[in-house]
């Protein structure tokens, strides 16, 4: 359905996405994991045709067999909401504060499907019920500030579902929410994807929520996908040094806190800092922080290999 082939995005400061290849089939649930500056949100905006004006795209981005990599706004517009929909991190600011949320959700219905006011209101109530908003008719008449953070995110999900998209992109949908609300929202997304046969791309820095909700995962670092495979395989047996470091650096609340001498256990760390866009290496972008680094890692472009896609010249890929 959606296919990226060596898609790259370049800014004046440097290259922000490098040779990204991905396939998303109907009903797929794909997690994209990475820290700040990994390019995961930029990748999401590319899938919506909403990359910043300053960005230069190369490679191909195919939706339903049509190459959209240099399509203009008018070509993209019919696809948005109907083929690809998106929800964002901040549910408060993502809703127009001056409009009743029901009107916001009804707008694309009336615009794209030509529904009448009453038909649209009815459909909005159905959608609100589908995303588990209690008392849908009443909620529809409320303003965003009258709803809680979790309810707002549900409204945004309903808005995204309004035109039956084939793919829903969720960009850090739970980061701004409290923990138990976040769990509910994540579970709702999985549920909707299964019921509707809708593909889901979940972008997150939170490994736990990706583990909970996706079948496949792509780990990004510095604009590269460094490792890609089944979610369980990647998160339980990571092969790329970066994925390994990232997983190890998470403190485990259930693990023993102190060693035999009664000293606190230190966490395994990845040395150094996430490099800025302009400071990325020509070769492997993880060079400089990697424990397995060889002399030519920083200069030689790594080639993706292995049954589980791996972008590391040192590690031999395995399934």
């Amino acid at each position, binding site marked *: 359905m959606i296919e990226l082939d060596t898609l790259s995005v370049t800014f004046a400061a440097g290259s922000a996405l490098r040779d990204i290849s991905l396939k998303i089939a109907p009903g797929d649930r794909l997690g994209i994991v990475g820290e700040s500056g990994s390019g995961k949100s930029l990748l999401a905006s590319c899938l919506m045709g909403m990359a910043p004006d300053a960005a230069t795209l190369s490679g191909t981005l195919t939706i339903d067999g049509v190459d959209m990599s240099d399509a203009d706004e008018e070509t993209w517009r019919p696809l948005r909401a109907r083929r690809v929909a998106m929800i964002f991190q901040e549910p408060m600011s993502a809703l127009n504060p001056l409009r009743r949320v029901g009107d916001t959700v009804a707008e694309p219905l009336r615009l794209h499907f030509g529904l009448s006011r009453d038909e649209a209101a009815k459909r909005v109530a159905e959608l609100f019920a589908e995303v588990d908003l209690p008392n849908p008719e009443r909620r529809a008449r409320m303003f965003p500030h009258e709803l809680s953070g979790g309810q707002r995110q549900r409204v945004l999900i309903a808005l995204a579902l309004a035109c039956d998209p084939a793919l829903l992109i969720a960009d850090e949908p739970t980061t701004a929410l409290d*923990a138990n609300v976040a769990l509910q929202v994540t579970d709702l997304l999985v549920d909707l994807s299964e019921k509707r046969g809708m593909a889901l791309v979940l972008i997150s820095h939170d490994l*736990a929520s990706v*583990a909970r909700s996706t079948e496949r995962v792509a780990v990004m670092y510095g604009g590269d996908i460094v490792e890609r495979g089944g979610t369980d395989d990647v998160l339980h047996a990571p092969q790329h040094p970066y994925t390994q470091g*990232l997983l190890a650096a*998470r403190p485990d609340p*259930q693990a023993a806190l102190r060693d035999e001498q009664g000293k606190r256990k230190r966490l395994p*760390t*990845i040395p150094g800092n*996430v490099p800025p866009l302009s400071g990325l290496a020509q070769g492997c972008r993880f060079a400089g922080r990697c424990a397995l680094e060889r002399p030519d890692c920083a200069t030689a472009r790594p080639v993706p290999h292995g049954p589980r896609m791996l972008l590391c010249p040192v590690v031999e890929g395995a399934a």
Partner: protein
Amino acid sequence: MTLLRAEGLTRHYPLPRTRVLGPRPRLTAIEDASFTISAGETLGVVGESGSGKSTLARLVMAFEKPDAGSVAFDGKDLHSLSRPDLRRLRPEFQMIFQDPYGSLDPRRRVGWSLGEPLRAMGTDEGRKIADSLVQVGLHAEDATKFPHEFSGGQRQRIAIARAIITRPQLLVADEAVSALDVSVRAQILNLLMDLQEELGLAMLFISHDMAVVAALCDTLMVLKSGNVLEQGNAAAILNAPQHEYTQSLLTAAGTP
């Protein structure tokens, strides 16, 4: 030995009036919180937005006064001290903040910012600035640079260096690692553990993330909407949470 003793801490914020008559509505930020921190020990406070954890930090730092309750540091009631006495005591308890980009004055060199607590105390800066930079894993020469020349993780190191430069007994950390990437977060957590062992620091460590608190704390306090849900030994709570809410926080922090 008890270093900090908070008893019955309560703080309300007045909300704007909505009707002409009747009492003014108010928001309960924190209600009847009591806890102690012993020298060299770490108390973790876990809670989400609106739980009152930041209010707790401001009360302990004596940035604002509680509506009820008291905070005693080293036996002295912080909120009844005179302003000069409070200022003289301040070097003993310091704070680090969430946003590494907001906690350093962008117009001041790192060395100037590090020297501020010393100047406030009226002590000589001497080699202390260079020493504390080295102590947090940076270089003495970094004192002449500006904050924007550093990454987020490095800035948090600088903020920590400033907080320990007066050799405090207590460090209050409000979401100090939340804004950092996972790979950098572990470095800062390790640094805090190192410093705690070297300096015998006691810590009040506030976070929304159970996993981070677990890595660092001896005792735990779980806050929700201003109320203390449960508190006690960290390992005990982590292994057998009494409250459903605590359990959901643990699930959220769970390993993938």
